[in-house]
C-alpha cells in the first residue's frame, strides 16, 4: 500500500519531469525563433491553445490549461526576445560535451542533439550559432566520426576546450550498492571503466549516451541498475553519486572543438588546418618541414583515411594567424599540399 510519503515521492518525481519537459519546450521555442521573421505569431498561438483545449484529459479543465499555456507562451516569447546564442552538443543534458561548453561560455544555451552529424548540420543551417564536438581523448584516442565530419565541413574552428573527465557511478536515491547488477552508459565510458566493472562483477550495457542513460535510470527506474555519467547528470536527473573517477587509468582528458559558420575574428593562440598530399615520395615531409624551418610548435597531427591509401591530415599548432611568421608558414604549406583548408585561429581553454 502507498502511504502519504510514497505519494509525495511520486509527485516530486513527476514535478522533476514536468520541469525538464518544460525546459525542452523552451529550447524548442528558441530554435523556432531562428525560422521566424518575427516573434509574434497569433495563428500559431491559436492553434496551440485549440489543440490543448481539445486534448486536455480527465481532471484538466480547459480554462485551467488555457491559463497555464498562456503563461508558457508568454515566457517563450520573453526568452525569444533575449537573443540567446544557441550551441548544439551531442547527447542529453548532463553530457560531458555540455560541461565542456559551459566551461567555454556560460552564456550559451546548450541544445541536445542526437549525434555529431546533427551538430554539424545544425550549425551549417543556422539552427545553432555554434556547436561543440569531442575530437580526441587521452584514453580513447581520436573520435573517428568527428574527424571525418571535420575533413568534409566548411565550418570554422573558433575555440577549443580541454576537459578532465570524471566518470561517476550514479544510482537512484536509497539504492543499495549490493543490488547493482547492470551498468548502463556510452560504449566509451563503459570501456574506460572496464576494470571497475569486472572487479565488481557488473554487467555493462551499452546506451547511446551517458547522460541519456542517467535520464533513463531516473525515468524508468530499472531494478538493480546504475549508470556511468557525469556529476552534472546526477544533479539534473536527481541521482546519487556513489563513486567518482572510476576509469581504468586516470588522466582522462577530452579535447573539444567549438565550431561556427564564421571564422573567429578575435586574436587566437592556436590554429588548425587540414590538407592532403599528392601521392609522391616526401610530400608529407615537405609540409611538415615548413613548420620545422619556421620554428612553429605542432600540438596535434591526425590523419583520416578518405579512400584506400589516401589520407587527409589535421594539424594543430601554437601561434596566431596575425603573426607574419605563421602567415608565411601557411602560405608555404598551402603551396606544397592539396585540398588545403585553414580551419581557424582560436583560443584554447584548459580546465580542471
Amino acid at each position, binding site marked *: 500500500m502507498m502511504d502519504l510519503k510514497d505519494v509525495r515521492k511520486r509527485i516530486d518525481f513527476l514535478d522533476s519531469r514536468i520541469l525538464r519537459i518544460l525546459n525542452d519546450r523552451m529550447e524548442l521555442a528558441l530554435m523556432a525563433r531562428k525560422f521566424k521573421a518575427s516573434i509574434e505569431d497569433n495563428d500559431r498561438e491559436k492553434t496551440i491553445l485549440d489543440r490543448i483545449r481539445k486534448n486536455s484529459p480527465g481532471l484538466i479543465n480547459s480554462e485551467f490549461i488555457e491559463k497555464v499555456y498562456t503563461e508558457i507562451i508568454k515566457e517563450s516569447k520573453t526568452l525569444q526576445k533575449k537573443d540567446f546564442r544557441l550551441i548544439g552538443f551531442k547527447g542529453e543534458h548532463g553530457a560531458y560535451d555540455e560541461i565542456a561548453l559551459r566551461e567555454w561560455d556560460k552564456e550559451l544555451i546548450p541544445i541536445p542533439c542526437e549525434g555529431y552529424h546533427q551538430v554539424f548540420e545544425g550549425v551549417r543551417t543556422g539552427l545553432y550559432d555554434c556547436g561543440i564536438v569531442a575530437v580526441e581523448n587521452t584514453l580513447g584516442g581520436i573520435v573517428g566520426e568527428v574527424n571525418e565530419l571535420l575533413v568534409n565541413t566548411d565550418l570554422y574552428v573558433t575555440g577549443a576546450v580541454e576537459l578532465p573527465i570524471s566518470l561517476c557511478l550514479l544510482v537512484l536515491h536509497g539504492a543499495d*550498492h*549490493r543490488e547493482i547488477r547492470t551498468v548502463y552508459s556510452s560504449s566509451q565510458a563503459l570501456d574506460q571503466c572496464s576494470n*571497475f566493472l569486472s*572487479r*565488481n*562483477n557488473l554487467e555493462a550495457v551499452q546506451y547511446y549516451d551517458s547522460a541519456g542513460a542517467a535520464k533513463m535510470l531516473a525515468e524508468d527506474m530499472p531494478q538493480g541498475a546504475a549508470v556511468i555519467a557525469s556529476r552534472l547528470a546526477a544533479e539534473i536527473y536527481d541521482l546519487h553519486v*556513489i*563513486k*567518482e573517477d*572510476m576509469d581504468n587509468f586516470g588522466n582522462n582528458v577530452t579535447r573539444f572543438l567549438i565550431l561556427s559558420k564564421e571564422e573567429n575574428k578575435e586574436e587566437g593562440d592556436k590554429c588548425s588546418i587540414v590538407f592532403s598530399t599528392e601521392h609522391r615520395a616526401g610530400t608529407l615531409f615537405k609540409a611538415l618541414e615548413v613548420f620545422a624551418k619556421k620554428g612553429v610548435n605542432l600540438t596535434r597531427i591526425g590523419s583520416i583515411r578518405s579512400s584506400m591509401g589516401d589520407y587527409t591530415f589535421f594539424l594543430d599548432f601554437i601561434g596566431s594567424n596575425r603573426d607574419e611568421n605563421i602567415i608565411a608558414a601557411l602560405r608555404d604549406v598551402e603551396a606544397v599540399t592539396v585540398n588545403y583548408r585553414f580551419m581557424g585561429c582560436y583560443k584554447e581553454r584548459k580546465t580542471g
Partner: protein
Amino acid sequence: MKNLRLTALNGGPPRRTIIRVGGVSIGEGFTVIAGPCSVETEEQTLKTAHQVKEAGAHLLRGGAFKPRTSPYAFQGLGIKGLQILEKAKKETGLPIVTEVLDPRDVSWVAEYVDVLQIGTRNMQNFSLLKEVGRTKKPVLLKRGMYSTLSEWLNCAEYILAEGNPNVILCERGIRSFDTYTRNTLDLSVVPAVKEVSHLPIFVDPSHGTGKLSLVEPMSLAARAAGADGIMVEVHCNPAEALCDGDQSLNPEMFASLMNKLNHMDACMKEIAKI
C-alpha cells in the same frame, strides 16, 4: 604452527614482508595509523584527518561499516562514509584503512580505500578472508579476542593462499579476567610473531586497553617490543564521538604521543647496536 606454508618462516632464512601503500613502506621503520573509530560526518573526518597528518601519522583509519555489540548502536555511514574517506585522502594524501564486514562489500570497499581491515570479530570469518585474499589490497588482520597465535596465523594463511601476500597482523587485546581494562593487551605476541612469521605486526592500544590513560604508555611499549607500527584512535572532539569516545585521544594528546615515539627512533637504534 603446522600448515603455515606461506605465513611462517618455517626455519628458512630470516626475511620481512614490506608492504607499500601510497608512499608508506609498512614493515620498514615505525608506521602510525591514526583516526576516528567511525566516520561520523565529513567535517569531523576531514578535521581529524588534517590533525593527525599534521602530527605525523602515516595512514588514516576510519570506520564506514561498523561491527557494534548492539544492533541499535550507530552502524556506520556505509558507502557515504567511504566517499568521505576518499575525500580525506585527496586532501591530506594519507592512505586509508577501513574495516570491511561483509563479503559482498569487499570489492566495493576496495574501490575507495588502500588497506582493508578485518576486525577481531571477523578474524575467523573464512569466506570474508578468502574474499579479501582475492583483492590486491593490503589487509590488516586483527587478532580475534579469543584466538591463539596459531589460529591467527592460520587466518593470515587463508589470505595468502588466495594470492594476496600483503597481510599486516594487528594485536588488539584478548579477553581475560580483569575488568579494569577493556581487554588485556598481549604485547608478548609482538616478538613471538617476529620469531615465527615474516609478516608485519601492529598493535592497537586503543581497543587493547579501552582506557585513554593507558594508550600512550602501551604505544611506547609496543614500539619497544619491536612492533612495526600502531593503530590508534584519534577524534577531533572525543566527548562527542558516536563510538569509542572514551578511548580516543584528542589531537593534542596524539601530537604528544607522536613526539615521544619519534624520540624513540634514536633509542631503538642505540639498543639494536648493543
